[in-house]
């Protein structure tokens, strides 16, 4: 295994040259048969090392003396073929293999004249681009830009009219690369990806190029899954349709690897699917991943295997069917398996992604000590941030920030740590500078920001926080697909915040605006699935009307709140509603009825151990009784 890419003082090339000559023989004899080539490489795994990488430029010149090759152009073509074989080779160190592939192509292209051997030159650019596209070493954003640049160069030669199949292949690969692109506008990049796959599909007619057609469908599916523009629910359905089309061609017996890739892609879409029954979608995702794992085994396709394990873990963590504990066990197991391949040095980005997912699992874990779970989660997010930096991988950084912020929000709820909320708010604002407006991460961050701000308001009572929270919720609500299963959660948060802000405004004398917010919140919540939130809003509205001395409406809403709290058996709610109602009835002169309610409130406050409220009601009752006695005396 590669230990690192240090520069040795002298470069021993004999072994490396021997290896390359042997490879050349194997390649030419088998006429480039991929299975034969793969076997050869597998049995020479130890030769794919740093010294080979370092030696490649020297080997090029050494091979000029070799009778197999007549010219440097031939050696260039051979190097490109070698680069291609290494690129798709699944064993050994992926990181190193990619470097070897890239270097081989670079060396080859130096000696290949574009105008004399345009097609070979273009092929070299394509393989180089493939390498950059997947490259692990170096700056990811840079690598992707280099890949795109190389593809564009290749396209100048491999045009659609002269080299349609090559052109289509490049378009397809370009599509995959645009999907990963970090620089420029994300939404635009995805649109370019979709466009590129569709261009490929103009050439890849299903009957004529079934495998390539399926590959483009797969790519299109991935792009639709990432798409930001358009309706999210629709996009995901298109993604599913595309993967399923690919699977019609990638029949298990014939093209196993690709079939497995398509299954993995399908699994990814089912996890995010908005339409249909959520638990069913998760089951379909799990099934798809398990099918993929039958082909992408650890021994034969370790990188892909590790990736699917990660995806499977995600599916299990969302799973609602089956035993909850067992699902959690499966989640942890799958992440651990993934991490056996995704080590931080050899696959830093993949490693970080899995760690991030593990952090989320700890964050959401309900077993064990909650504060300890959250502490663990936060520690991991911090480690992940070392890899997902804002400069290098901004979208992943933003997602990490958002998930980390949620952990902080939970922490604040458990420990009353104000600073956690302040940090969460800052982190989310930072994440929102990066997140693409309209994307799922953007929506999540807006919703979380709303939550963090409204929690902070509970402590500092700064109405600006509430105003901002409202704005954040509204933004999230506007962005989220109307069909999304999370919509309800955000949609409920909005009126709940409205009712808190509304009652606050009323108390401060902004009664018009406050009352309007309260009435809006009641109106929204009465159609929601959260009767408790509805009851709370009714109660707040009653209180607001009481503040305004509008006894009729106050009484009405207190009774409504009481009825609903009673139905929900919420003792605290019942008590405070009776308290309010009694107080209003007494203000209106219905002393007997009012005292009846107050007495019931008192009894209930005693039961639920609220001595502060008990004292309050007792005092009020005393006052009323005195007033009643006085009235009786006067009447006499």
């Amino acid at each position, binding site marked *: 295994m590669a230990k690192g890419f240090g520069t040795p003082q002298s470069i021993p090339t004999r072994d490396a040259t021997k290896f390359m000559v042997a490879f050349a023989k194997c390649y030419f004899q088998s006429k480039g048969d991929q299975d034969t080539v793969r076997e050869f490489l597998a049995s020479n795994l130890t030769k794919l090392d740093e010294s080979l990488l370092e030696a490649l430029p020297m080997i090029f010149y050494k091979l000029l003396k070799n009778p197999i090759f007549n010219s440097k152009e031939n050696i260039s073509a051979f190097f490109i073929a070698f680069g291609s074989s290494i690129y798709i080779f699944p064993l050994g160190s992926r990181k190193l293999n990619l470097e070897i592939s890239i270097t081989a192509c670079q060396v080859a292209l130096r000696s290949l004249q574009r105008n004399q051997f345009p097609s070979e030159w273009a092929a070299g650019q394509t393989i180089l681009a493939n390498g950059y596209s997947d490259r692990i070493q170096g700056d990811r954003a840079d690598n992707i830009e280099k890949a795109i640049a190389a593809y564009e160069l290749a396209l100048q030669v491999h045009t659609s009219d002269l080299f349609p199949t090559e052109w289509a292949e490049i378009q397809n690969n370009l599509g995959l690369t645009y999907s990963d692109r970090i620089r420029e506008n994300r939404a635009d990049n995805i649109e370019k990806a979709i466009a590129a796959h569709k261009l490929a599909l103009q050439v890849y007619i299903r009957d004529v190029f079934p495998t390539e057609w399926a590959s483009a469908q797969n790519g299109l599916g991935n792009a639709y899954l990432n798409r930001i523009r358009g309706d999210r629910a629709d996009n995901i359905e298109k993604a599913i349709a595309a993967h399923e089309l690919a699977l019609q061609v990638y029949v298990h017996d014939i093209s196993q690897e690709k079939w497995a890739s398509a299954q993995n892609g399908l699994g990814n879409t089912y996890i995010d699917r908005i339409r249909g029954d959520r638990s069913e979608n998760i089951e379909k995702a799990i099934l798809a991943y398990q099918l993929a794992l039958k082909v992408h085994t650890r021994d034969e396709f370790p990188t892909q295997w590790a990736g699917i394990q990660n995806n499977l873990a995600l599916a299990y963590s969302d799973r609602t069917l089956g035993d909850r504990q067992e699902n959690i066990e499966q989640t942890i197991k799958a992440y651990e398996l993934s991490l056996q391949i995704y080590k931080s040095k050899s696959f830093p980005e993949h490693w970080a992604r899995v760690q991030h997912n593990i952090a989320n699992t700890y964050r959401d874990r309900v077993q064990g000590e909650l504060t300890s779970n959250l502490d663990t989660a936060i520690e991991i997010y911090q480690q992940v941030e070392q890899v997902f930096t804002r400069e290098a991988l901004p979208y992943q950084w933003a997602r990490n920030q958002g998930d980390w912020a949620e952990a902080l929000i939970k922490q604040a709820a458990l420990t009353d740590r104000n600073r956690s909320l302040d940090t969460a708010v800052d982190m989310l604002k930072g994440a929102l500078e990066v997140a693409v407006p309209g994307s799922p991460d953007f929506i999540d961050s807006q919703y979380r920001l709303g939550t963090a701000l409204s929690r902070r308001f509970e402590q500092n009572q700064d109405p600006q926080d509430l105003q901002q929270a409202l704005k954040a919720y509204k933004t999230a609500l506007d962005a989220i697909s109307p069909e999304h299963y999370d919509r309800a959660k955000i949609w409920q948060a909005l009126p709940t915040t409205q009712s808190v802000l509304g009652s606050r405004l009323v108390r401060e004398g902004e009664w018009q605006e406050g009352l309007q917010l309260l009435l809006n919140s009641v109106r929204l919540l009465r159609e929601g699935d959260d009767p408790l939130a*509805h009851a709370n809003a009714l109660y707040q509205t009653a209180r607001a009307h009481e503040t305004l001395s509008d006894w009729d409406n106050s009484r009405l809403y207190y009774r409504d709140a009481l009825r609903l709290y009673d139905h929900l058996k919420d003792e605290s709610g019942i008590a405070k509603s009776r308290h309010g109602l009694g107080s209003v009835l007494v203000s209106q002169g219905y002393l007997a009825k009012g005292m009846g309610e107050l007495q019931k409130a008192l009894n209930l406050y005693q039961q639920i151990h609220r001595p502060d409220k008990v004292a309050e009601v007792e005092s009020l009752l005393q006052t009323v009784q005195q007033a009643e006695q006085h009235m009786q005396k006067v009447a006499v």
Partner: protein
Amino acid sequence: MTTADDIFDQSQNNIQRLGLKEIPFTESPIDLESETLQRIFTGREAELRQVFNQFQSRERRRILVYGRIGIGKSAFLLEVLSVLRRKRPKMLTTYISLPANLDLATTALLAVAKEMDDDDWAQRYLYQLGIPTSKILKERSSEISASMGLGAKTSEKDLQPVTSQYPTVSLDILLERAQKKYPDGVVIAIDDLDKRNPSEVRQMMHDAQGMLKGDAWFMLTGHPMGITGDLLTSERGLFDLQLKLDELDQPTTYKMLINYLSSARIDNDCTDQGNPRCVLPFTPESAATFCRVSLGKPRLFNRLGNTVLSKAADLEVDLITPEILHEGLKAAAPTLRQQAALSVQEERVRALLMKRGEISDETITFEDLEALGVRSFSDILPLLERLEEADLAHQLDQEDVKAFAPIPLPSSEETEST
């Protein structure tokens, strides 16, 4: 074969058989001639006294008349205005029903402008709003032809409509002009604020504070639910008098029936309560029942009266006995329902009301609400009010609960008892 003319004649005969020139009951008091209103307006003595006391003041006053829908607020307003017209000829009285989408100041401006036929400015303003005026207004413009030296051309072109940006200021100016002709002042009566959304009304009142403190007498009608406690307080609020109109008591309703009928009877204008002729074509017994069923609510009274008389006419009787009354009232329920054109939800609430006999915010159960697909009484309150508006329900006079009951009409499915 009966012709249409014959049918018309028959219809007229049937009403005349009852001793009436016409059916005196109307949906709205606006349709009435001032004289007729004067004849039929009944009761409300205490309320009238309170209002006329206000008009003895030198200071301009602001009066709010509120009460449930159909309680007679418009009639009250019109009666006050008609008295003022007779007693204060040098006072300009204006009446307007609040138009949709207009604020109070612009409405007031419209009301006054309409009554000032001779005032150019007022007429121009109406024209600009697209309201027909007696004169077509032209704008005079002049061009001087430079090449002609001293020559000049004058041409006229039609005014382009322009909305007033400062209605309160415009109103002040118009009032000033009006007061030159009407030294006793200007009364602006704006009706039907209760037809608008209560929160809109709150906002409108808030925005109209400047206007309401201006140089006119204001009388507004409103809905009790739409006015918060804040506005009802005279110290901090906007009104010098807030007058609540309640249901008329039985004796007053009976007197009102006498007045209505005598205004339409052909050869008998008896209004002596001791004389049974005063309620013809009703018998005293059926008259008393009729008054009881109409619950002292003038609009319900009018609607039921219409149906009862129409039914009696169809039956070609000359006397409305208790049995005929019963038939008439039976016919009223489906007529009211048809007129109401209830939505599905309103119908469900009506059905629950009929089943329970009474619904209140205190006694309604969660199960009842759930069956209606809601979770709170405040959700069905607008529906109950809509039923009240349609005279299919009425609010009970209980101050500590919000309670509704069906109008006590006989069911149309009742069969004759043997």
